[in-house]
């Protein structure tokens, strides 16, 4: 009986995390259309509800009532399971994300490793979708995306190794606690090259502009999900945006001090700003990174495919390797306020 209550309690917590997450996805699409609209001197959606605020729901209902078309020669089972395979890891990784001090579903010691494992699974949905649809454009999109994700995972993994060295733990809460202090105490400063590499690889991992050749509209229509419609397409969409929020959340936890306020530990400002709950600081920082995603999309032209590969292998990976050596020396020397 006690185990059952425990189980129900865990399920409730999962619901409390996933509910707001899916709502954020809905409003991230709204924010994206609005912000890109403003950047391009347009209004963005403004018809459904006040200020167009009900637009995401209108889109969801439209997609739900549309037919899921199965291509004639598609592999039925894999075609239908591919969207779920891309959504599952995007949601599962949230299990170890600390939203505030102690606000985490499971505080496991190998948290960082778990996140890395989960994000590396997202590629299955993409390749299977591309293959199962039995369409040339899908296949091309899937191949591009799979090669890109596998390449940038290496740079991202190396960047995370740097965080791991600096924090001395793989526990996500432990990583945030080792950054306790004002804004210059956070890891973005001593790990600046790794932070930049992480963020570039994060954008590339989620197949977002300027690295969105996987769905490059001008060449291969919509890439791996060109044959998807209705709810199946909506699930891919959900997974992509959940992954964006996840990468932003990880950036906040690993480099931007998680739930700490930028003035934490300072004489007067510290206690004042600490009155704001840590969850709010976390959300504000995540929103900042999400804005970067949208800003990139509105301002950068798409990379050419060979340039993406060159950037990943010949620029980002060497930078991380060099900085890992520098970081090791900084830790040995007890450099600055970070490694004493």
């Amino acid at each position, binding site marked *: 009986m006690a185990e059952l209550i425990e189980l129900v309690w865990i399920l409730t917590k999962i619901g409390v995390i996933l509910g707001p997450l899916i709502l954020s996805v809905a409003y991230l699409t709204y924010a994206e259309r609005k912000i890109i609209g403003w950047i391009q001197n347009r209004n963005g959606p403004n018809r459904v509800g006040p200020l167009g605020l009900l637009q995401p729901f209108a889109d969801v209902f439209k997609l739900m009532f549309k037919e899921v078309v199965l291509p004639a020669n598609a592999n039925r089972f894999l075609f239908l399971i591919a969207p779920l395979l891309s959504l599952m890891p995007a949601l599962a990784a949230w299990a170890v994300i600390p939203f505030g001090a102690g606000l985490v579903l499971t505080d496991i010691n190998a948290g960082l490793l778990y996140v890395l494992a989960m994000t*590396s699974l997202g590629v299955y949905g993409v390749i299977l979708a591309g293959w199962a649809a039995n369409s040339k454009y899908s296949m091309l999109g899937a191949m591009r995306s799979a090669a890109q994700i596998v390449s940038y995972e290496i740079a991202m993994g190396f960047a995370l190794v740097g965080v791991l060295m600096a924090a001395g733990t793989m526990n996500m809460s432990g990583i945030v606690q080792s950054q306790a202090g004002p804004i210059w105490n956070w890891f973005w400063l001593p790990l600046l090259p790794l932070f930049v590499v992480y963020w570039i690889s994060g954008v590339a991992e989620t197949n977002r502009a300027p690295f969105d050749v996987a769905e490059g509209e001008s060449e291969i229509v919509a890439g791996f999900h060109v044959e998807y419609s209705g709810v199946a397409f909506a699930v891919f969409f959900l997974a992509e945006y959940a992954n964006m929020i996840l990468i932003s959340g990880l950036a906040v936890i690993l480099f931007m001090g998680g739930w700490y306020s930028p003035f934490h530990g300072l004489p007067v400002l510290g206690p004042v700003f600490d009155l704001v709950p840590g969850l709010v600081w976390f959300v504000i920082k995540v929103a900042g990174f999400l804005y970067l995603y949208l800003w990139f999309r509105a301002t950068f032209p798409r990379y050419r495919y060979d*340039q993406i590969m060159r950037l990943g292998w010949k620029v980002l990976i060497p930078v991380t390797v060099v900085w890992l050596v520098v970081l090791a020396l900084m830790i040995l020397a007890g450099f600055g306020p970070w490694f004493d």
Partner: protein
Amino acid sequence: MITQAIFYFFAVVLIFAATMVITARNPVHAAMYLVLAFFNSAALWIMAGAEFLGIVLVLVYVGAVMVLFLFVVMMLDINLEKLREGFIRHLYIGVPIAAVMVVQMLLVVGSGIMDPATLPSGDLPIPEDAANTALLGSVLYTVYVYPFELAAVILLVAIIAAIMLTLRRREGTKHQDPGRQVKVRKEDRVRTVDLPRNQQSGSR
């Protein structure tokens, strides 16, 4: 009770997936069943307290190795009928190999090394607060540091060898040199020409 139920669930799915890997007709399905098998064995390892090994199994085998596998399998144009007809033909060599492997495994398992009673007991079950990853790391980098470094060097040699084997200078590839692309200036490419105005308009 619930723990046992979870264990048997993972174990049954693992055995089912492993069987399907060798019986599935479609190679892509077989690869996906292998992914499922890896996943369930990772879950079993985590249940046994080996969280680091479990997560690394997912990270390395599912996240990297199987993706490349799937990549290759998808690119192959495999005739499914041809694959199936070899089953009986290869049986006479397959069965003895399988038999040898079974005998070898029986010898190892039956010799008593695997008997829980004779194993060094350690702390079983593993205490809740033991940081598996940290313990593993401290042993790897102290007691086993030379074998560990040796393994790393062997892997590096394998990477370099694999790249050297496939790196050939082919003729006629449209190779681009990014350095030269960056160095290009407007003067090298663009020529401004003064066109005399055409007197008889519409004569073209």
